[in-house]
């Protein structure tokens, strides 16, 4: 562990990323490349997709992917029950799924992080109340809460982002509170306080920089869970409403056509698998990286 390039000085972001890349094993490198490809596909979906994802064509319904009998030229992955291009819908679905997941994960991070900070610094009754909320949240399966909220508030994009944002806040709150409590006893905090720094300044300049690495790891792990959650909700018909494509709703609607047109389901399902695989492996890799840096310090 001692021969790592990260030692006393905090490494610059670029150097940190490079050293992390070098520490990755071949499987992890594949996962990183897959993840990057998916992000690029999602970002440039409007440029890459050959068709409008919602454009219907009644004469070319349920055509199989290229290479099969009855395939229609130009439709690489075939068409769905309304004659829409499966490839274009998958790309736009990927785009929306990743967008919703990153918005949701960010919201959860902000909410949970803030509550964790308040609990950790505030202490006393505030802390007790926040931690009681954390315990309640942990005790309940989140799918249940999401189902309930979406039924009540309706499945608009705003509500979906809000619901996804509520996912995992308790994990951030726990991590941040734990780290804050641990650090509040350290001499450099005491020194800052003696120098006249208020709670806000201590939080921004002294606590946050030290909590970044466990937070990044948690963020990655919850990102893959949120992709799963969004896909599950859309699959059940409670997420993003038709005709807008998300990967989950494509699988959910396509399953009715599975006996005759399995390709409608296979493409989006494969994309969901690629996302969760890549992000999970990425999360493990970041966690190991964060650990190594902690040990090297």
């Amino acid at each position: 562990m001692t021969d790592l390039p990260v030692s006393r000085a905090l490494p610059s972001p670029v150097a940190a990323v490079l050293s992390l890349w070098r520490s990755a094993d071949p499987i992890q490198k594949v996962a990183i490349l897959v993840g990057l490809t998916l992000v690029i596909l999602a970002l440039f979906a409007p440029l890459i997709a050959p068709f409008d994802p919602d454009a219907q064509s009644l004469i070319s319904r349920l055509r199989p992917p290229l290479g099969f009998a009855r395939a229609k030229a130009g439709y690489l992955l075939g068409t769905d029950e309304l004659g829409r291009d499966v490839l274009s819908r998958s790309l736009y679905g990927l785009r929306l799924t990743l967008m919703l997941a990153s918005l949701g994960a960010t919201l959860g991070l902000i909410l949970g992080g803030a509550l964790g900070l308040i609990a950790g610094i505030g202490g006393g009754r505030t802390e007790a109340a926040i931690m009681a909320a954390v315990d309640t949240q942990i005790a309940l399966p989140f799918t249940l809460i999401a189902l309930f909220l979406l039924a009540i508030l309706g499945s608009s994009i705003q509500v979906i982002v809000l619901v996804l944002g509520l996912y995992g806040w308790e994990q951030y709150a726990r991590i941040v509170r734990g780290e804050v409590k641990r650090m509040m006893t350290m001499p450099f905090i005491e020194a800052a306080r003696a120098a006249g720094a208020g709670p806000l300044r201590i939080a921004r300049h002294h606590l946050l920089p030290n909590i970044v690495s466990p937070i990044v790891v948690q963020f990655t792990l919850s990102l893959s869970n949120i992709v799963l959650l969004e896909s599950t909700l859309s699959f059940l018909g409670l997420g993003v409403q038709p005709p807008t494509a998300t990967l989950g709703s494509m699988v959910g609607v396509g399953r009715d056509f599975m006996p005759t047109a399995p390709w409608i389901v296979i493409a989006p399902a494969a994309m969901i698998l690629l996302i969760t695989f890549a992000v999970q492996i990425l999360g493990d890799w970041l966690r190991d990286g964060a650990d190594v840096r902690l040990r090297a310090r």
Partner: protein
Amino acid sequence: MLSYTLRTLTRMALTFFVIITIVFFATRLSGNAVDFVVGEGITSEDRALLIKYYELDQPLFTQYLAFLKSFTDGQFGLSFIERRPVSQIVVERLWPSAQLLLSAMGLTLLVSLPLGIAAALWRKSWIGSAVMVVAFLGYAVPNFVMAIVMVLVFSYWLNWLPVVGNGTPWHFIMPTIAMAGVLIAALTRFTRNAMLDVLGQDFMRTARAKGLPESRVILKHGLRNAGITILSVIGLQVAGLAAAGSVVIESIFAWPGIGDLLVSSALRRDYPVLQFGVVTVALAVIVINAAVDLAYAWADPRLRHSVTA
């Protein structure tokens, strides 16, 4: 032990109360539920009648008290759509859910305990790595994707297994496997880690030094001690995962359980059913957590015999 039990039960009751309160007020956030159900084209007199019937015209706090009271009369109100007592609708769903849950838990224990122990014993060989790959797949493959692939292969292509309902033992196979997937992943990892912790302990060396056969050392001294940790995980993680899984799996296989009921009542905006269904599942999870908490305390002699804990 007694005070520990009391504290666990109090916490359980408090959590439950908080949940029913949140459930009640959240349902009232969305305006008048009647409008969702009957839609347009209803005369305003009929609408007023419906509102009066469901007591939606009362002040919020009165409604809240009535909601709390409905937990004591055993009916829990009437379904908007089926027009029968909610309790009836929910109760007939409980047993099928319990059946599926038990069979999934059974499969999980059967698979993940041996796998986890094997992965710990042969950590550095290919067996250990293979088990960890299986555990990873269980986490990364969403249950609905797993379910759909199984349906595609075993029902549509091979025509071996039925897709819908819970009529015969054959109906159990795919839902059980789909539901157990993530549970197996979770429990295998925890069994492995718990066993790894135990394997390095002094009492294991002592047991071997006494000349006990290796199988006895592993099962009696190893697994028993690891079991305490595993038990706590079953409560905390597995109960939640199983509740979330049953929502998805039951709805895919049209399994007449409470998860399927939750999804259909959410899609139909049948609030009385949804409310009570959510509260029921939450209660089940809380009770399982508390039960495991107590079992954990009881199984751990240090906790059982201590006065204050």
